[in-house]
């Protein structure tokens, strides 16, 4: 980050100024030149009939804004809209303003497939920012592959997938898990782990990787229990009793959704004070968004391992948080996935400009190696396997609902969606 940009005024700015500030910030780090539409005739940069005109390009936003997932996905929609607005304020992509068509997946996987098809077949969108749950991604995947669409998927997920038609802007499981386990073993001397999760593919795969890592790579460490509960489960007393009996050093929790609220409250009610770190609670599923539901006082003292926390102190992030709050309100919080969603439009812009074309095949070819120095999480780079190189961080939950970053990997962690030795 350069000094000029960090000195921009911080008080009394309106939304336009903030957007312009963000623009200056990113422009100074991206391609500084302004790309003129006239230099890129539509016929040349769009040979496959996508929704590109002489001054606009249309993309799709496909998230749940109704149903049970709306609470999680709304942040992603907001981040994507912010990125689009900032890119437009900066002159768009190849001189074209981004327009978007938003569709509602309705927390329903067949609807996601239907809407994805509509966006690709009827609207001919140039790319799609969307999906959140693995189930919705699995539902739209055949559609994107059949019609050669291009999806930016923001959520940290279980890996075991590498589609030519998807860019995974969140972390895959090994990126997120291994650094955290190494940290807790080294810094906290943890030897025994109790694995816990909601019962679906992501927690199960993640815990499988965690177990292999604990048993094979952490000296003398062992797993003393592994349990799963149905989505929406709210009675954790029996497992809390087992935990008290087994006395593990670490509770490794991958509980999601409404279950989170019950789990942490019951843990606290059972007299397990997380701030005493005995046992220590390490989670990979609680972002700042979830803490809003759980309540900061109920999870204070737990550790979370992911790639982004709102409290990161760097100029990119401070500008991002500020713009986000300007656009969507001061009471917003930004979690890991929201930040990853924000990267989607920027990564696509960089790839399109590198390719000099909106054609999906050319954008795909240009995508590996794309770098983003302006990402709120810091520098990221796209790997050949369509995932991002990114740092992994450990945060300590505070009562105010934010995390203190207590550890960050020295280098970028390589994405490895099909990890050898962890299958």
């Amino acid at each position, binding site marked *: 980050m350069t000094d000029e940009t960090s000195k921009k005024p911080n008080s009394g700015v309106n939304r336009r100024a903030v957007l312009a500030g963000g623009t200056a910030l990113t422009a100074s780090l991206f391609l500084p030149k302004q790309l003129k539409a006239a230099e890129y005739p539509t016929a040349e940069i769009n040979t496959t009939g996508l929704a590109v005109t002489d001054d606009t390009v249309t993309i799709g936003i496909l998230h749940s804004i*109704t149903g049970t997932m709306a609470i999680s996905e709304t942040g992603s929609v907001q981040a994507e809209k912010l990125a689009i607005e900032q890119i437009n304020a900066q002159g768009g992509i190849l001189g074209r303003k981004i327009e978007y068509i*938003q569709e509602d997946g309705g927390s329903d996987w*067949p609807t996601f497939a*239907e809407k994805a098809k509509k966006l690709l077949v009827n609207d001919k969108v140039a790319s799609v920012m969307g999906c959140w749950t693995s189930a919705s991604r*699995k539902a739209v*995947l055949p559609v994107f592959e059949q019609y050669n669409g291009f999806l930016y998927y923001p959520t940290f997920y279980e890996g075991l997938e590498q589609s030519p038609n998807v860019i995974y802007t969140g972390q895959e499981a090994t990126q997120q898990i291994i650094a955290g386990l190494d940290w807790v073993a080294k810094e906290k001397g943890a030897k025994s782990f109790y694995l816990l999760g909601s*019962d*679906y593919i992501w927690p199960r795969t993640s815990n499988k990787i965690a177990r292999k890592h604990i048993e094979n790579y952490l000296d003398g460490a062992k797993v003393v229990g592994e349990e799963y509960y149905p989505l929406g489960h709210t009675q954790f007393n029996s497992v809390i009793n087992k935990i008290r009996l087994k006395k593990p050093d670490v509770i490794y929790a991958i509980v999601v959704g409404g279950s989170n609220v019950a789990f942490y409250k019951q843990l606290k009610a059972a007299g397990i004070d997380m701030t005493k770190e005995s046992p220590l609670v390490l989670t990979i599923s609680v972002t700042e968004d979830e803490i809003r539901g759980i309540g900061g006082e109920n999870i204070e003292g737990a550790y979370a391992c992911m790639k982004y926390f709102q409290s990161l102190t760097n100029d990119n992030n401070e500008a991002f948080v500020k713009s986000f709050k300007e656009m969507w309100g001061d009471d917003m919080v930004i979690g890991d996935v929201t930040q990853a969603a924000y990267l989607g439009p920027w990564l696509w812009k960089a790839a399109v400009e590198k390719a000099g074309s909106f054609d999906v095949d050319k954008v795909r070819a240009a995508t590996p190696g794309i770098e983003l120095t302006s990402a709120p999480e810091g520098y990221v780079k796209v790997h050949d396997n369509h995932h991002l190189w990114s740092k992994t961080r450990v945060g300590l939950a505070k009562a105010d609902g934010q995390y203190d970053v207590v550890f960050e990997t020295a280098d970028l962690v390589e994405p490895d969606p099909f990890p050898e030795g962890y299958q």
Partner: protein
Amino acid sequence: MKANALFTRSEMIGFAILACVIFLLLPAVLDTFRLNLFGKYLTYSFVAIGLALCWGAGGILSLGQGVFFGLGGYCMAMFLKLEASTPENTAIQSTPGIPDFMDWNQLTALPWWWEPFHSLTFALFAVVAVPVVFAFIIGVAMFRRRVGGVYFAIITQAFAAILTILIIGQQGFTGGVNGITDLRTLLGWDIRTDEAKETLYYVNGILLFAVLFAAQFVRRSKLGRLLIAMRDQEDRVRFSGYDVASFKIFIFCLGAGFAGIGGAMFTLQVGFMSPTLVGIVPSIEMVIFCAVGGRLSILGAVYGALLVNWAKTTFSESFPELWLFGLGGLFIAVVMAFPNGLAGIWVEKIEPRLLKAFKKSPAPASPAQQSTPAE
């Protein structure tokens, strides 16, 4: 009995109009994408027709039809998934040759009960047989004990919840929340292409008419009249010496079989099956299709499924933030203004005028006929 005893004249017209809509009008005005969507809506019609028989005619309100729709769909999906999971396609897995979700869940061999689904014949048989057997068990357990009305509705709803939890919980065997996805070919025929979608649409239409004829046959038969008698005065039918429970079981199984066929066609046209189609919410939605169409009418049920789903798609495309309110408003409006749904509008408002215009015999008005209104 005359040769055309299966239909009254106006029913014949109704069937002909629906055939024109499905086989001529929709394919002519819609592109492949929209046609495929309407194909998907039509799969719900199978369920709605079954409900029109069970609920409209027989008075058995089932809030668990999604279970049968889902079972039929899963049977089809299992066959297609096995065909898609060739060792070559799944070479990247720890155990090639089994469906991908099994590999993710550390299964190393295909469960025994998946084995028969390598055969299309078995899968097609199972599409109907599994829902019917399931319905038979529920039916015997409930109707023989004379459980009916609200209690029956609640119990069917519980079954919908149980099956959803079972599917999600046993994800190594069922694909869990994600469902069974990425289905590609049927005996080597790629079901994802536009041509395949069109062919499947017509197959779907033909099956729909087969089901409609079966339903019509039941309604016009003695069984159909007994069902209505049971709905209105169950005890009198019982005292007349009829075995009420057997009739109820039969009609419930028939509805389940229809729903199973619909589920299988859904899987083929949409390309996956997931527990979201099995649970309580879709089951209730299916009842709504039937209610909007007019629960007394089998043709109304088809139009109801089409209209509600079309409205759902259109509202949600135009107003992604508000569409649920629009849909809710539609339901309230229909139920408040037209308790007998679309079919009621037709019978009460449109048909008499048409008949008058054509100078035919006066419109039917006797109460007996109103309870089984013709379309």
